[in-house]
């Protein structure tokens, strides 16, 4: 056998604990301590004043997608449809076209992501053989007042730069 048995002490059976009131007063002393600490100086509150103060996010955070570019500014994506095939929520819609800049044979003429469908699972990033799609834009709050704006195309996807430096990001991927 040899399994170690840890005996957990059962609380709440003594006379004073059975009276409830003493324990209740102890609990109330704890909460009122917090109350007066915060009332005296409300900078003690454990909250972030959100819309003004943004949370710090890590390189592994899966934010809004972005399409990466080569050094010369051409798009890395070769329209291989790996991400679209792999997407569990079927939110990626690619239309492939001939590539004229000589980097490879194909490129997307349309690359749309429906952010209302997307579940931010990151499978597209894992599937991509060209490291062309990433979720490191650092945008964690995507809002809009209508559905149409939630469908983003190549222009919006290229636009944000990576929010983290390359080394930090690669650590997260590895």
């Amino acid at each position, binding site marked *: 056998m040899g399994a170690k048995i840890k005996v957990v002490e059962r609380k709440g059976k003594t006379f004073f604990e059975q009276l409830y009131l003493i324990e209740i007063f102890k609990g109330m002393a704890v909460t009122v301590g*917090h*109350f007066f600490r*915060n*009332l005296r100086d409300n900078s003690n*509150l*454990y*909250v972030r*004043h959100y819309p003004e*103060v943004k949370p710090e996010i890590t390189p592994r955070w899966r934010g809004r997608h972005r399409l990466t570019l080569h050094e010369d500014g051409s798009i890395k994506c070769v329209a291989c449809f790996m991400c679209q095939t792999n997407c569990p929520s079927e939110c990626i819609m690619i239309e492939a076209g001939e590539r004229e800049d000589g980097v490879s044979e194909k490129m997307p003429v349309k690359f749309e992501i429906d952010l209302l469908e997307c579940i931010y699972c990151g499978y597209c990033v894992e599937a991509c053989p060209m490291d062309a799609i990433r979720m490191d834009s650092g945008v964690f709050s995507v809002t809009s007042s209508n559905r149409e704006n939630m469908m983003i195309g190549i222009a919006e996807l290229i636009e944000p730069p990576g929010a983290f430096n390359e080394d930090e990001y690669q650590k997260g991927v590895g």
Partner: protein
Amino acid sequence: MSLLDILLILLRIAFGAFVPLSFVAVLVWMERRGAGFFQDRAGPNRCHVMGFRAGGLIQNLADGVKLIFKEDVVPAHITHKFYFILAPMLVFVTALLCFAVIPFADVLVIGSKEYIMQAVPLDIGILWFLAIVGFGVYGIILAGWSSHNKYGVLGGLRAASQVISYEIPMGLALVSLLVVYGTVNMTEIAQYQGQLLFGFIPMWGVVVQPLGVIIFIIAAFAETNRTPFDLAEGESEIVAGFHVEYSSMKFALFFLGEYVAMFVSSALIVTLYFGSFQIPWFATETLLFYATEVAVAIMVGLPIGAYFFAGWIRKNNKSHYDRPNDPRRREATVYIGLLWLMVMLVEVVLLGYLVFAQNGIADRLLVMILQTGTFLIKTTMMCFVYVWVRWTLPRFRYDQLQKIGWEKLMPLALLNIFITSAVIVSFG
């Protein structure tokens, strides 16, 4: 009836009707900001009118507007619409009526006439309270039943089981209290508590009935449907219990009713056990005798208190992040200005009293205002205890509440009656 009589009657009724209603706003604010602070978060502090947030009080305004403009739905499956609509009214009206017999100041003597400072100057005091409060729970049961909804019925059932658990210990706790006071008249009870025990302890109910006060407060928590006994509306298991089918102002009436009930039962606890309007060691006669000194003391003390309060506002009313030209600082400046304006107003009134109007009706009015203030401060503190307990304790199951009511509180209350009676018979 002279003009003064009518004026005072109007004043008392206005006090009895509007003070609980205006306190609802304060209590909701206290509850929500208090809950925030108990849990180390901020609570509602964003709503504002022209940048003035009044510490979060403006949120109530927004809530009120929202509730008024919501659609008032009476679901089609409800067959007894009359009872469905009657229920929230019952809850609200009974809560408000209870306050009518609670004295907020000592008997005001003007000339040869005496004015009892209750909204309704009844002699039966506590009996009125017991009768009306017992009626209030019908509103909840009726709401649960007429909603024709499983959760609603369960909520109503729980309310019914609750009422049989707490009413008996509450009544018995009151019996021993009445043995001590020898009267059911609230004003006389309050006057009794102005005496001193052994010449130096204020003879408050809490001193002469230490066991009774615990029983009564526990029962009062159950009676107002507040945590830890808010099982009639257990959100986690029966959605919202009895008010699950209500929307808009009908829901708001339940909501208001709950807070009015909380205020009224705090007022009752204060009246019965914590000396009512009595300032400790300063009975009405003493206050009248030293009216000038008291006025001077207030005139000195008020600016000192206001200075510290202003410092607190200055320290806490600021943005907790970098913000150019912090508007909250400007807000604080305005609040502090208003505070000093109010202090100045009070000082001027008191100065006028000291110079022109001593030793007359003015003395008595001053004492009345002081006592009303004391009563309201004590009641607010008791309400804070309600909030404090709500954000500390989890909810009881309803068999646990019955067990506490029948097996613990009732024998204790009976024991309390025997002890009290024995002491009264042998010493009194």
